[in-house]
């Protein structure tokens, strides 16, 4: 049985469909990436699939249970969600922000069980944030802040992690480090779904890519099967060269817009 199963999700605002008839399922142990041009409906699809937005039609289920019948904490213990917008208002210490990842387990920054503290420490270590624990959030660089949010999501240690553009603000080194964390989480049996704009990173790290355009899922499969010059032209409107590398991966070179 799939961990998360989204069936025929549709959602429109003022008669304009943002997501139309989208279905997909996520299996444990795989890193799935959602790609598509700006405005394709990726974030809306994530929110629909997570039950944060009520679909016009269709449904989403987690472990076979309809998400709309689950309480927010029940859902949050299964899914950690890292949204695209991560506004902070208070200059809280890094440790306390990451500790909020344990919220669904009844924890608060001032009240962490031993399990919670251990999970927070593991997340801090995974995101290379040792030594930053007491730094106020407003003294961090954009990249450091992104890693703090990532650590917050990892601290939940949930079976499914859904992230909306988690590496957008990161430099190349930290992009690769973050995606390596994702890949190893997948190897250890978790399911991950992440929106990403950098297609080379998608080609390099994804087990599977879901392609979206104009609110619809237009393709779904491994990078090798789906990342073709034709797909890149049709979905993104770009000319690109795609070549298989010796180690079985893909080398992608974007030439320019069509």
């Amino acid at each position, binding site marked *: 049985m799939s961990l998360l199963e989204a069936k025929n999700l549709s959602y429109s605002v003022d008669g304009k469909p943002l997501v139309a008839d989208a279905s997909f399922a996520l299996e444990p142990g795989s890193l799935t990436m959602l790609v598509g041009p700006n405005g394709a409906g990726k974030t809306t699809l994530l929110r629909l699939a997570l039950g944060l937005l009520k679909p016009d039609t269709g449904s989403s289920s987690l472990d076979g249970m309809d998400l709309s019948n689950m309480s927010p904490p029940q859902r949050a213990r299964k899914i950690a969600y890292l949204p695209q917008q991560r506004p902070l208002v208070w200059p809280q210490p890094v440790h306390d922000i990451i500790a909020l990842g344990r*919220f669904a387990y009844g924890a608060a920054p001032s009240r962490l069980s031993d399990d919670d503290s251990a999970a927070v420490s593991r997340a801090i270590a995974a995101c290379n944030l040792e030594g930053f624990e007491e730094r106020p959030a407003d003294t961090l660089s954009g990249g450091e802040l992104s890693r703090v949010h990532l650590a917050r999501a990892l601290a939940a240690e949930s079976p499914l992690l859904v992230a909306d553009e988690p590496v957008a603000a990161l430099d190349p080194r930290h992009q690769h480090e973050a995606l390596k964390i994702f890949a190893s989480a997948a190897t250890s049996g978790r399911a991950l779904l992440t929106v990403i704009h950098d297609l080379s990173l998608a080609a390099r790290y994804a087990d599977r890519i879901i392609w979206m355009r104009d609110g619809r899922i237009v393709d779904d499969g491994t990078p090798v099967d789906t990342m073709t010059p034709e797909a890149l032209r049709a979905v993104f409107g770009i000319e690109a060269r795609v070549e298989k590398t010796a180690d079985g991966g893909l080398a992608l070179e974007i030439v320019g817009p069509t």
Partner: protein
Amino acid sequence: MRVIGSLATGLVIAVLLSLLLGSVPLPIDRVLAALAWQASDGDQLVVWQIRLPRALAAAVVGAALGMSGAALQGLLRNPLAEPGILGVSATAALFATFVLYFGLATAGPFVLPIAAVAGALLATLLVAAAALRNQSVVTLILIGVGLSSFSAALMALLMNLAPNPFSLADMVNWMLGTVANRSLDDLAFATPFMLVGIAILLATSRGLSALALGEETAEGLGLNLKTQRLGVIVGAGLSTGAAVALAGSIGFVGIVAPHLVRPFVRYDPARLLIPSAILGALLLVLADIGVRLLPTDNELKLGVVASLIGAPIFIWIASRRRLA
């Protein structure tokens, strides 16, 4: 916890100090004897009927406003949110004045508190609905200013139409805010609303922590946003309304107290609530002592002093915000 301890100690000392002040000079041993029911009838009357109600009124009003401010700031994710700034106090005062004006307050002791609470709830609901629809901080403050001005305009209208100088003086008292001449009965009718409000706010505290990361993340963390919003709105409405019923409109306590406490609780909106309430109480008790010590012909109103101190601090906080 250390913050709470020191603030609470400060509050007890301030309340004792305020019992020493008044037109009849009473040394501390006679005040303590009166508190223990061991003094002359005259001393006991002064302490139990005049000074203690006044000090307690200042304390509970400060506590209710301090905690409401802290909770509203957590919900709206804005350090400038406060019952006074958002027009909640002004609307509550308007409703209270309204029942006074039409002589409805004589119908029963709970009429006035209920009217003030209704006004506060209405205003909190309006402002929160607008704030949550439109995420802009500036819009929120502007709506609050608009609501305050509108309530003030309606209040001015009532004053304009006031039938006699006595009702006019009554209304001025409401607008300026004071805890002078409060009785233990007044306290008894207002504090139940306050206690319920404070209890509701405390129940929302963990959710306020989650909201520090934004509404979308908080929802993802498993917070029920609707319940959370409703809790803070009802809790802050009840506490602020009851505070206004007891003391009229007193501004800025709800902004100054949380602001001063925040660095001592690691900026955690949950841990902010209780110390903000205690500091709010302490500030108002001290301000009320100040009001009585200042050698003016007419005793200054507590709300006037609170605004004189609070408004510049508000401007200072607004100009020094670090995170967007």
